[in-house]
């Protein structure tokens, strides 16, 4: 019975079916399956299958995002029960779009990619003042901060945030990664960012690399 329910959870994640994941996760909890087992054997395994199919070219970005949403739905069912058993994350990432810029589709894809690859991600949203980036670095103590900008008039904020981190003596405590359509490696080098990815997929490899994860 519990094996069958775990399989149902896994398959529902692979299908990106939020309702089904919620239903089967609740059923598994009611049937006495341990929350950590549901997480590792159902939800995480499901998102791994999604990742494999994406890598093989059978799945596309909407499949990834729906898969991640389905996994999140399952996690929100078991999270209150996981108090003693903490989730293991690969690392803590904080990410936002700079002040004066309301564009967030690229940032949101990066968030989904990082989450489904096992990172804990804090989303600061859009139009985030530089000072807020710095304050949140102090508060959340992420290992990596991601700064997104799309407009040619707002990319300079990426530089400003790195300078502010420097002034506050926080620069060596956090890795800074940047992204956005007008961004390239030369700009990352110029403003002293630790990394840049030309698309959402490279963000995962970049973060793993920066944290020394293979």
């Amino acid at each position: 019975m519990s094996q069958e329910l775990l399989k149902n959870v896994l398959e529902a994640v692979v299908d990106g079916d939020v309702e089904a994941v919620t239903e089967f996760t609740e059923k598994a909890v009611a049937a006495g399956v341990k929350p950590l087992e549901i997480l590792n054997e159902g939800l995480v395994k499901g998102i791994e299958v999604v990742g494999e199919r994406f890598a093989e070219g059978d799945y596309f970005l909407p499949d990834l995002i729906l898969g991640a949403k389905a996994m999140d739905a399952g996690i929100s069912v078991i999270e209150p029960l996981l108090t003693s058993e903490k989730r293991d994350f690969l690392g803590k990432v904080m990410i936002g779009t700079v002040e004066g810029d309301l564009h967030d589709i690229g940032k949101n894809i990066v968030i989904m990619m990082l989450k489904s690859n096992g990172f804990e991600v804090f989303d600061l949203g859009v139009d985030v003042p530089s000072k807020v980036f710095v304050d949140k670095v102090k508060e959340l103590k992420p290992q990596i901060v991601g700064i997104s900008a799309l407009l040619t008039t707002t990319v300079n904020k990426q530089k400003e945030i790195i300078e502010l981190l420097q002034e506050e003596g926080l620069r060596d405590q956090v890795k800074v990664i940047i992204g956005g359509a007008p961004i390239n490696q030369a700009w990352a080098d110029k403003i002293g960012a630790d990394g840049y990815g030309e698309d959402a997929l490279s963000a995962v490899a970049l973060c793993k690399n920066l944290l020394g994860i293979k």
Partner: protein
Amino acid sequence: MDFEFFNETELEQMHRATVEILTKIGISTLSDRLKGLLLDNGCKEQGGRILFTEEVIEKALKTVPSNFNLYGRNGCELVIEMGKQKAYAQTCVGAPSVIDLETEEKRDATLKDLEDFAKLADALENIHLISPVFPRDVPQEIIVTSETAATLRYSSKPQRICAESSHELPYIIEVLAAAAGGMEALRQRPIAYIEVSTISPLNSGFHPAEALIDIVEAGIPLGIVPCPMMGATGPVTLAGCVAQHNAEILSSVVASQLLKPGAPVVMSPRVTFMDMKTGLGLWAMPEQGLAAAASAQLAKYYNIPSTVTGYSGAAKVADIQSGYEHLYNALLPALIGTDIIAAAGSLDNCLISCYAMLVIDDELSSVIRHTIAGCEVSEDTLAIDVIEEIVKTNEAFLGHKHTRKHLRAGAFWKPPIGDRSTYDSWAVNKMKLEDKARQKAKELLATHEVVPLSPEADAEIDEILKKALKESTNN
């Protein structure tokens, strides 16, 4: 020529969907000025969104001018007749990178590139409006003002400016007024139109909304250029994304008319799509060209001038792919009918500007404009008497005055650089089109002379730049 993308029933469905989106879903904005304007004129606020009414939309659509003109500054005779669907070509805006003309490698765009692209576009006969590349080596606080000034100095042709932030607008307008011979002269004979890019889906943001109001109040033609991506910031389906996009653009058109009935405004649809493997924003074919054609037909339906992006694609170098992508994406909306086709000289989904590609797009612009000019059907062009005469005299058409007359009048299109020589004469150098384009770009940059701004205007613009930089860095 008369082509259509939607039939009459579909066109009506697209319009009804647009109205439904505006009345049921509405727009959001962070600008109290825009919000106030819309609410004072009959729109309603619900759940933080502004909902339009059919009456407001209908009333505003009645006052939009169906045509107006744009002009070059001193030294330019060009008149851009907006509303006549002449498919003028405009250079790509905001590319952060260029393909270096000497090394043929990609590198960051500089102020020198902005100047050179403006100069090259000034020299090319079939490129009509200039938009700047994105130079990294100018003060970023006043970047759009600096771009506008540099473009004015290196080209006398009309400009298209993207106002990405509202704080620079007063300076940009001052610079334009200096070149046009004063504010009143600028209003009478605008040498630029200024576009705002609201955010998809259905969000006018803060800066685009504020800039919209300032542009209309200044009396400068306004363009509205949101940029949804099918499947990411708009529906994946072409009809759905075009309808949402049309609603986004119309919301700003309506605002412009509520503010100042009769204010000149341009609909600038840019429906792009996302690569579902990498998340890249694609400005490629066929989706971009199809959506541009669909959107252009909607602008025609409202009798409002329009621009689209057509000289664009995903190719990374000037090659066969960039050639067919640009021709496809530009020709489709041109056949439906649009005023300006943007992004000439672009590569890599409008992220690179390329000198050679600009020369190739000049060639494409030439053939597209020749194509849409259509074919005159008259007694003279039907030439039945000429046929009769030739057949009866057993002569060749080659030696008839009718042939000479029409040849001189442009009966055949002449490619600016395309090869039509015999094989053997081509084989002497075996030059590919890309090589010829690079060669022509180098020649024009070495020899073309841009008519300078008047010394007074030039000095005035210097003062404005100094003031703008001082005030912007003090804040």
